[in-house]
């Protein structure tokens, strides 16, 4: 299954496009997406600081996703927030 990932905040500086597509097996969980994203970061984002992904939430338009939940086909990558 293809998962469309939308990038925000600090993740926008690692590549020109604000989104990317990950290929995962059917039935993948949110944790699986996190692992695939970490592999993508290791391969393509040399400036991604250690620990940033660990502090990053994965979310739908409605809520931060539980790590064991099935992955939706579209999700957002939310680094630590700094509004206000």
């Amino acid at each position, binding site marked *: 299954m293809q998962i469309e990932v939308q990038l*925000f*905040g600090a993740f926008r500086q690692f590549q020109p496009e604000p989104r990317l597509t990950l290929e995962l097996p059917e039935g993948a969980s949110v944790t699986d997406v996190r692992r695939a994203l970490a592999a993508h970061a290791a391969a393509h984002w040399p400036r991604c600081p250690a620990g940033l992904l*660990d*502090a990053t939430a994965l979310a739908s338009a409605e809520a*931060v996703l539980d*790590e064991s939940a099935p992955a939706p086909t579209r999700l957002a990558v939310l*680094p630590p*927030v*700094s*509004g206000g």
Partner: protein
Amino acid sequence: MDPKHYRHCAVVDIARQPLDTAAAIDFVSDEAHGGLAVFVGKVRRQSHGRAVLGIDYDLYQPLTLRQFERACATVLERYGPTLKLYVAHAYGSLKLGDLAVVVAAGSPHRDEAFRACRDLIEAVKHEAPIWKREHYVDGSSEWSEGCSLCYRGEQSPAPPAAHAHDCADHRH
């Protein structure tokens, strides 16, 4: 009355219009309210000792609005259903002195108004998917460090130590 009449949540493209403090006060005003509290966040000149030219704000709009609505619902439950609440955050490129966020609460008495306003701005800063990139006078720029949203999902357990994030620095 429709609950929507008691709260106004918005994100505003700074390129189209500035935030409006007077509109916030108007919204939370009511003949039954003797206390209004307003918090205004502006782009300041210094950040962690560095001179700032401006800030770009990025946000995930649908979830930001949903988090604003959730924060308002929590505050109404906590302090009373007749409070009126206003939350608006700007996005885009803000200059020094521009308004980044306006939060207001109207209540019969001042204590609930102050508390509601404080709770709302803390929720905006720590729970809404909003990010800022500061631009400095030396030409450099940086995304600000912030608070992790990990394990803030409604079905999530408490955060394990490995994911704990230090949000002790509430100056951000």
